[in-house]
């Protein structure tokens, strides 16, 4: 009986029998890549097809090997893993592709001196022609568009956050599922689906009636954008206010605190991080809108810092006009370089906003720790 006490090192443990070796996925991946390359070489090589064929071969190879060695349960597990990871890669592909394309095309425009500090005022086709023919630097920049985007979005936020937040407070704290609350919820849902051009036309038509025909200013654009923003702000704030535990409200009431003070000092501070990130996401949603700004603020080539008077440029309309109507029709390359640069700035702006949202959420989050 002593033999059972001495461990047998040479034999593999009975508990780990019937498993694929650790290197199995890598081996299958290598084989799939090689076989995939070989197949693609027969019908004409391209990277996309290589990736696709290799991925299919990898999934088939790993699953059937696993089925042969480990049995059907493990094989199903491997198949599900392949599907999940594959879907993730498919979802990631457009994002990476967009960022890569914009970076490659946008960086030359962005590092051009004066790109962020100059407007397009006085930049004519003649300069662009010269830049292409003589290799001089591309003139002109996006300062006016950047300023317009920031000012219009800021004004839209100033309009929509109070309206949206107060609506959400009414729905959660006072509406109590009444008829008015249900109607508001319904119309907010309808508003969420409004096409952005319709919001732009509404704002334009509204100001034509009130201020006289042809009124196109940054403020009109801000109103159009807030029509798009308000439902998003209402929806996200409502969710955030709803998840504040009722116990906290009751605790405040039991201390003899009035309802409005309870909302202001207990409910909103508890939900503020979620509300702040909801607002930032709403801003990110409207900052790239093109159509409503075209019909409400027009587009300008010079600096206009007054949102309440005169046409205003914004980054999306700048991109749109530079691509569609290049400054020099015979040499559109400088214009498209400026457009890509503006697109890169827009993406950076949205990413910064997302970072700010995370930061705000972290700063305002209920404190933990001992």
């Amino acid at each position: 009986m002593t033999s059972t006490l001495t461990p047998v090192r040479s034999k593999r443990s009975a508990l780990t029998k019937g498993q694929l070796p650790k290197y199995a996925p890598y081996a299958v991946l290598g084989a799939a890549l090689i076989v995939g390359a070989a197949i693609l070489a027969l019908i004409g090589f391209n990277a996309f097809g290589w990736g696709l064929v290799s991925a299919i071969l990898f999934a088939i190879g790993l699953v059937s090997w696993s089925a042969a060695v480990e049995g059907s349960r493990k094989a199903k597990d491997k198949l599900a893993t392949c599907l999940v990871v594959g879907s993730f890669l498919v979802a990631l592909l457009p994002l990476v592709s967009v960022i890569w394309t914009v970076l490659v095309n946008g960086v030359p425009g962005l590092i051009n001196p004066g790109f962020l500090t100059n407007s397009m005022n006085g930049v004519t086709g003649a300069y662009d022609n010269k830049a292409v023919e003589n290799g001089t630097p591309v003139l002109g920049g996006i300062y006016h568009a950047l300023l317009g985007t920031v000012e219009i979005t800021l004004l839209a936020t100033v309009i929509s956050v109070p309206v949206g937040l107060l609506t959400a407070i009414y729905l959660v704290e006072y509406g109590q599922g009444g008829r008015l609350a249900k109607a508001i919820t319904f119309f907010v849902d309808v508003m969420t689906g409004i096409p952005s051009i319709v919001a732009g036309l509404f704002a334009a038509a509204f100001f034509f009636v009130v201020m006289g025909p042809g009124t196109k200013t940054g403020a009109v654009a801000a109103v159009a954008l807030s029509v798009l923003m308000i439902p998003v702000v209402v929806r996200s704030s409502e969710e955030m206010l709803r998840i504040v535990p009722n116990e906290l409200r009751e605790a405040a009431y039991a201390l003899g605190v009035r309802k409005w003070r309870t909302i202001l000092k207990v409910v909103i501070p508890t939900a503020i991080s979620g509300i702040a990130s909801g607002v930032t996401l709403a801003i990110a949603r409207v900052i790239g809108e093109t159509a409503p700004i075209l019909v409400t603020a027009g587009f300008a080539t010079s600096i206009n810092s007054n949102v309440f008077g005169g046409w205003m440029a914004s980054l999306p309309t700048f991109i749109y006009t530079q691509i569609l109507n290049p400054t020099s029709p015979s040499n559109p390359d400088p214009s498209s370089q400026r457009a890509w640069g503006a697109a890169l700035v827009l993406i950076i702006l949205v990413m910064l906003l997302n970072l700010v949202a995370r930061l705000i959420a972290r700063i305002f989050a209920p404190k933990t720790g001992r």
Partner: protein
Amino acid sequence: MSKRIDVKDLNVYYGDFLAVEDVSINIEAKSVTAFIGPSGCGKSTFLRTLNRMHEVIPGARVEGEVLLDGDNLYGPGVDPVAVRSQIGMVFQRPNPFPTMSIRDNVLAGVKLNNKKISKGEADVLVERSLKGANLWNEVKDRLEKPGSGLSGGQQQRLCIARAIAVEPQVILMDEPCSALDPISTLAIEDLINELKDQYTVVIVTHNMQQAARVSDRTAFFNIAGTGKPGKLIEYGDTHTIFSNPVQKATEDYVSGRFG
């Protein structure tokens, strides 16, 4: 700093549903009164009507009178906020405000109402309230830390400190120990014994031993069946209720034959 409560012929409704029927009870000042009874018999509902907290639930209403030293809580023109600043409440689950520090939690009743208070007065109030809740020694070095970092029992004592910081006349406790371990429960029970020197305490509990340990008088509530209203069956000295009750139902309940 304590007042008596007299309840006359009180009916509590949720919409059309009669939840508690015809309760009359006299709660003495500077005493501990316990409400016992099976789940769903309306003792928590009844407790919440004593500081109008049931009005938080849409459709809840009462008929009858609740007199705080002779003043009807449900009289015309009475502000529920004024009622609640005199009758504090501690809830089943500890609910410190997560955005506030321990110190701010104690001062919540003052600060949320925007009352001006100097730093010196605030320090005195914080120390007195936390000492009153037997929590001072455990938290005096970390008053600026968040209240949610305390243990469950400490959080519940923090909630009691928060309730006594507004200097109420009456403290209502809705199963304050049901989420706590035996040691924290003991700490709260000791605290209740001290609180009755200054306050009128009303406590709802599922734990009959707890009622027997902490209360001077006990009220037994019962319900005839699902969908029927809860009723006050018997009310008397705790000793009498547990050793020599008048009603058969009370005797069955306290001796563990049902419920």
